[in-house]
């Protein structure tokens, strides 16, 4: 989706300001919504890609204005209703009409398991790579209306396969149809000048993780 979340290369966003001695959270509600999202993920009604896409669907003006944890809250409320864990009526009233049909709830002893979930994106499937290290590739000029991990700034640009990381879940399909469509994930190295033109420094580069379905031979 060509949304405002796809920020790479946008200008006029202002300076990067690093807060000195920044706390992990800035308010109590940030802690609660962060933890609630993890605890709700335990029910496996959505995956991480669906979760990202929910946040991307925030209205663009809201997305730009929102803090990170406001986006987390928006994404969680959206998914709870869409995936049927909470009704829109319950969310509006704040009162439960019935218990949710879930088999259990995340306990303290399940936290570590939950935090290890991310490694599940790496798969053992025997899928042949379409490219080898050193191959010249071009990122597809595609504009899917749904979720994609191919940033706009790389589309149509030529790069080189720097590394093959093996077979991973393909987020673009995983978010939209839950099809993991396992395929090779690469680090594709683009010269900064290929992406940004003559204003970029000659030797600089941007390495982007892209999947087989994002690439064609150059």
């Amino acid at each position, binding site marked *: 989706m060509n949304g405002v979340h796809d920020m790479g290369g946008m200008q006029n966003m*202002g300076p*990067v300001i690093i807060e000195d001695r920044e706390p992990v959270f800035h308010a109590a509600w940030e802690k609660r919504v962060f933890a*609630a999202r993890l605890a709700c993920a335990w029910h496996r009604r959505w995956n991480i890609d669906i979760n990202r896409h929910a946040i991307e669907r925030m209205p663009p003006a809201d997305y730009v204005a929102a803090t990170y*944890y406001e986006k987390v*809250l928006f994404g969680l409320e959206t998914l709870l209703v869409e995936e049927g864990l909470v009704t829109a009526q319950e969310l509006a009233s704040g009162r439960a009409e019935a218990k949710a049909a879930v088999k259990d709830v995340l306990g303290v002893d399940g936290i570590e398991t939950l935090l290890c979930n991310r490694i599940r*994106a790496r798969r053992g499937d025997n899928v042949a790579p379409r490219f080898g290290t050193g191959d010249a590739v071009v990122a597809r000029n595609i504009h899917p209306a749904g979720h994609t991990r191919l940033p706009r700034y790389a589309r149509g640009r030529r790069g080189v396969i720097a590394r093959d990381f093996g077979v991973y879940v393909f987020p673009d399909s995983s978010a939209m149809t839950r099809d993991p469509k396992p395929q090779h994930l690469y680090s594709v190295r683009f010269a900064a000048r290929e992406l940004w033109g003559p204003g970029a420094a000659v030797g*600089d580069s941007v390495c982007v993780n892209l999947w087989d379905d994002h690439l064609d031979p150059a």
Partner: protein
Amino acid sequence: MSDHHHDHHHDDAEREHERPLSGPALRVKALESLLTEKGLIDPKTLDAIVETFETRVGPRNGARVVARAWTDPAYRQRLLTDSRAAIAEFGFYGYGEDMVVVENTPKVRNLIVCTLCSCYPWSVLGLPPVWYKSAPYRSRAVIDPRGVLKELGETVPDDVEVRIWDSTAELRYMVLPERPPETAGWSEEKLAEIVTRDAMIGVARVTVPGSRR
């Protein structure tokens, strides 16, 4: 608070709530109580998750990895070739990420960003700082990395390559910064103390406090 029983207590949250609540704070409070009533979450687990991210996961983990790589050449090699396995040697709590560690050298400066959201190596650096998740950093790191670094006090010479890593996958990056030359002979523990979060993201160098380098 002790004259009646709650099913659950969140002492710091309740103290916070003595002040008027802002919009998201009210919404989150309502949501947490709804989710609890629905049987979807246990507030005690939420307390434990928060405690985990405030105390057990964070950049001190990454600093230990860096310090070992600086003092043990065989470890450094393992870290650069199979980052996940080398980091797993530390047995960090909740370590479940595929990782790639990229090494700064006199000729290459690495910088990590996630332009599409805010992917970050939780298990070695904890939760990302606000600036990392902000529009200015996400938008500018790929198109104007030298400008961002300069603003943050780091002028990169023309003959040094700036290499950006845009984290778009469930595979996260960490920078292995350059070891300051004046730390020769330092122990791993002492080295770990000077390794900062920002150096492991790539926006800063590791410096020795008090040194004028």
